[in-house]
């Protein structure tokens, strides 16, 4: 695939096609205003980039056009690549889809091709030669922009996944030696493993004696994950910490019973409040309302 790596320096074209490209570029520069407008209006017509205003489309169209001509003129694609990455960075958060980006670049290619037809309609051999020079370059530009867009989007997705993963497992200390691990959402085996690691590490660094794992926010879990939860409880015990599991939904309770876990090993309390209260008892705390404390003292 010749288009696979747009960053590569292209093969030096024959002098004849260089000349043709130069002529082509001169033509595109000369008719810049008109072609650009034609392109912008055909974008609107095709109802692409609906997330952007007309002025914005025109501004972007201008810079895409200039970069496009620049890439044709120099035969190097670095500038275009950088530009398309920047463009993607700007328009992805606004919900622009891949088909729109590919669509506008293909539209530009067609608009320019039409103008070439119009200019050289009297001379078919010349038109053919001009198109021979123009088409590979134009296709490569379209490819570069589309690939740049998709790569940028994948990067954004990866970044977000990372962020979600980091956010999803806080280990919180609420009292001296008491940790809370609220779990929300779906637990897959990978996340379960990460939860366990963070919890065990948290027990060590915070010198925790009691841990409350609250799974109110987990609707269901499969047998593998439930088993993992039980293993986490046992591993925590080996570190000298007692685990209290709170907020088991009926479905999860069912799963745990079905996999035949020895409930003697699991300390479970109905809700988070009850769990914290029991944890405080285990740690020897006693919560007294201020008024009662004052009369007692």
């Amino acid at each position, binding site marked *: 695939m010749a288009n696979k790596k747009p960053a590569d320096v292209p093969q030096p074209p024959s002098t004849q096609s260089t000349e043709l490209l130069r002529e082509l570029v001169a033509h595109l520069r000369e008719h810049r205003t008109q072609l650009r407008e034609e392109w912008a209006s055909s974008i609107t017509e095709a109802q692409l980039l609906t997330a952007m205003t007309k002025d914005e489309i025109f501004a972007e169209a201008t810079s895409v056009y200039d970069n496009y001509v620049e890439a044709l003129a120099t035969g190097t694609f670095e500038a275009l690549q950088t530009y398309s990455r920047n463009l993607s960075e700007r328009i992805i958060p606004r919900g622009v889809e891949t088909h729109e980006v590919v669509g506008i670049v293909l539209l530009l290619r067609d608009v320019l091709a039409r103008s070439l037809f119009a200019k050289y309609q009297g001379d078919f051999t010349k038109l053919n030669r001009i198109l021979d020079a123009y088409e590979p370059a134009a296709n490569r530009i379209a490819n570069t922009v589309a690939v740049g867009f998709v790569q940028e989007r994948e990067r954004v997705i990866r970044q977000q996944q990372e962020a979600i993963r980091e956010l999803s497992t806080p280990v919180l200390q609420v009292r001296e030696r008491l940790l809370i691990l609220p779990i929300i959402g779906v637990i897959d085996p990978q996340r379960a493993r990460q939860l366990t690691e963070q919890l*065990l590490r948290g027990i060590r660094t915070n010198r925790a004696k009691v841990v409350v794992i609250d799974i109110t926010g987990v609707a269901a879990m499969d047998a593998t994950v439930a088993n993992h939860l039980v293993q986490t409880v046992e*591993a925590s*015990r*080996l*570190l*000298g910490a007692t685990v209290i599991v709170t907020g088991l939904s009926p479905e999860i309770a069912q799963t745990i019973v079905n996999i035949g876990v020895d409930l003697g090993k699991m300390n479970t309390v109905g809700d988070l409040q009850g769990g914290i209260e029991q944890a405080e008892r285990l740690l020897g705390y006693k919560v007294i309302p201020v008024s009662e404390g004052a009369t007692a003292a």
Partner: protein
Amino acid sequence: MEVPILKQGRYLIATIQAALSDEDLQQLRRTLLERVIQFRSRGVIVDVTSLDVMDSFATRTLRDITYMIRLRGADTVIVGIQPEVAFAMVQLGLTLEGVATALDLEEGLAHLEQRARNSS
């Protein structure tokens, strides 16, 4: 390799410093039991902080030590199991059932003190 056993008041502290062979473990079991009888110890702490692996034989031996010492009327605490080791053990089904565990030496001593307070 012999495991040093320190006497601290009425407690014994055995610190395992490197991976032990099966023979070493059996030696540890014999020595600990003798010392518990000799010093009339109230509690034993086995510190495994420096172990980065615990196989089934080691786990079983530690459990046996705990049970045997209990028959002498003393308590045993295993301290310092590393998080990774703990999870690996659980996955292998080695859960040290009925054996007290604590985070580190300090916690282990606190645990023994509390046991002594509760029983007196």
